[in-house]
């Protein structure tokens, strides 16, 4: 397997404060890779830097072998990285359909309509209420729409930031099933989660980020069994 995304010694600072320090990880084509770690560990900052919303202080980000760390966010999307941000960040005053159209903003091909219908098949509740404002939907439905919107650009790499945040266990399960489904259809996934148990169970590889650094990594099931991980993130002693 080849590395689709390579993050090398990434450091990101807000003013004098370094939120991410020397983080390195690799996402291979076709994998689900998760970054886990406690609140404020720098996971969200890492994703926002990969997608071009923030600039690294030092380090490298390679996508499909090319450096992307100096590109603008809208160009990075065109390269094939979609970012489903923390808190979903839907356009609440626009309809479901308009949100999906924006997800496909950079596409000029004729397959947009078909892809939109695929999202509606995957999440029928969105199809039934496609002309309703996105802000009126429940948290779980909004997360479905946020993932659907991110998929509309047909990304090679989908980055999901806390997709289970604020969702019921059933809805969380539903979202994680969807992530696995997207992987089986060929999308590579980089997942950031506080729900370490669910994330690692799903992942080919996991990285633990602690105080802005990558402290541990390994295949998902191995990390799940690791005592340090269990103690720190799964609430066991």
């Amino acid at each position, binding site marked *: 397997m080849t590395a689709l995304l390579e993050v090398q010694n990434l450091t990101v600072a807000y003013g004098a404060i370094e939120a991410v320090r020397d983080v390195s990880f690799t996402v291979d084509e076709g994998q689900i890779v998760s970054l886990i770690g406690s609140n404020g560990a720098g996971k969200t900052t890492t994703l926002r830097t990969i*997608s*071009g*919303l923030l600039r690294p202080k030092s380090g490298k980000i390679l996508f499909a072998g090319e450096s992307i760390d100096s590109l*603008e*966010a*809208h160009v990075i*999307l*065109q390269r094939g990285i*979609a*970012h489903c*941000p923390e*808190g*979903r*960040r839907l*356009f*609440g*005053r*626009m309809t479901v359909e*308009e949100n999906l*159209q*924006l*997800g496909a*903003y*950079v596409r000029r091909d004729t397959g947009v309509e078909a892809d939109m219908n695929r999202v509606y098949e995957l999440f029928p509740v969105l199809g039934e209420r496609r002309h309703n404002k996105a802000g009126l939907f429940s948290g779980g439905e909004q997360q479905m729409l946020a993932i659907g*919107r991110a998929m509309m*650009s047909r990304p090679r790499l989908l980055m999901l930031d806390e997709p289970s945040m604020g969702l019921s266990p059933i809805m969380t399960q539903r979202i994680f099933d969807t992530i696995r489904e997207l992987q089986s259809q060929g999308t590579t996934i980089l997942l950031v989660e506080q729900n370490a148990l669910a994330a690692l169970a799903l992942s080919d590889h996991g990285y633990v980020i602690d105080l802005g650094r990558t402290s541990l990594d390994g295949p998902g099931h191995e990390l799940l069994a690791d005592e340090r991980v269990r103690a720190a993130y799964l609430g066991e002693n």
Partner: protein
Amino acid sequence: MATLLQQLASGLVLGALIALIALGYTMVYGIIQLINFAHGEVFMVSIFAAAATYKWFIPESWENTWQIALPCMLVGAVLVAVVLAVLMERFAYRPLRNAPRLAPLITALGVSQMLKEIVRLNYPDAKSAINVPRAFIDEPIIITVPGGTVVLQATSVLLIAVSIVGAVILQLYVSRSRMGRAMRATAQDPDTAKLMGVNPNRTIVFTFALGGLLAAVAGVLYGIHLNTVDTEVGFLYGIFAFTAAVLGGVGSIKGAVIGGFIIGVVKTLGGQLLPGGTGYDVVWVFILLILVLVFRPQGLFGEPERVRA
């Protein structure tokens, strides 16, 4: 009755002009939360551009054929206004995009003053009012109503029609087109719009250009309607248009248009019917604005301040 209708018509004409200018304020505010005080100056410059086009750029044989002269003036005014709006965004506001809110606001006032002085000092005879040709149908339209007649200039009818049709087209464009979606997305959440692949600079500069275009349409219509212009009109109409945008709810296209018409009508009728006469007409406008803002701070059609999750 006839007098009242005549006054109402004047109010609607004034309102139509204000509405066209207010659209530029409201769209730019909606997308970058900047009150572009120099927008009124774009309107003013476009009137001079229309006059200049007529005077120096079209052959004499065309001057008396409004069907040719008017489109030429429009092209001249639109070109100048759009280029001006784009340059303003690029060189005055874009470098300050991430600066504290006050910096671009002060810059806007500076740009406004600068444009006014540049025109006043460089356009021939612009130290006092200059003439703008009529360039439209001369015969007025006379409507008989109970108790008399209402006389409408052809340009009045044109102004009201263009303003309403223009606003409807703009509303459709913003709500249906791909660029319109990008504009709304950038207005609601700029970072997430970028994540959708929307180029923020291109979207913002397009919004300025669109505002400039509408200001130029207003400028040409103002010129052929009133046949005179001086460098102060930008400030005067800018203030009214800004007020219309606030009254209607900044960011709302519908609000800007309805706000414009309300201000035009209140100013005109207030000056006629309320105590104090025309000297007090502006007072009524601002009393109305204050009342609306006290009871509905977001304006008539504005969205309440959003709370972001």
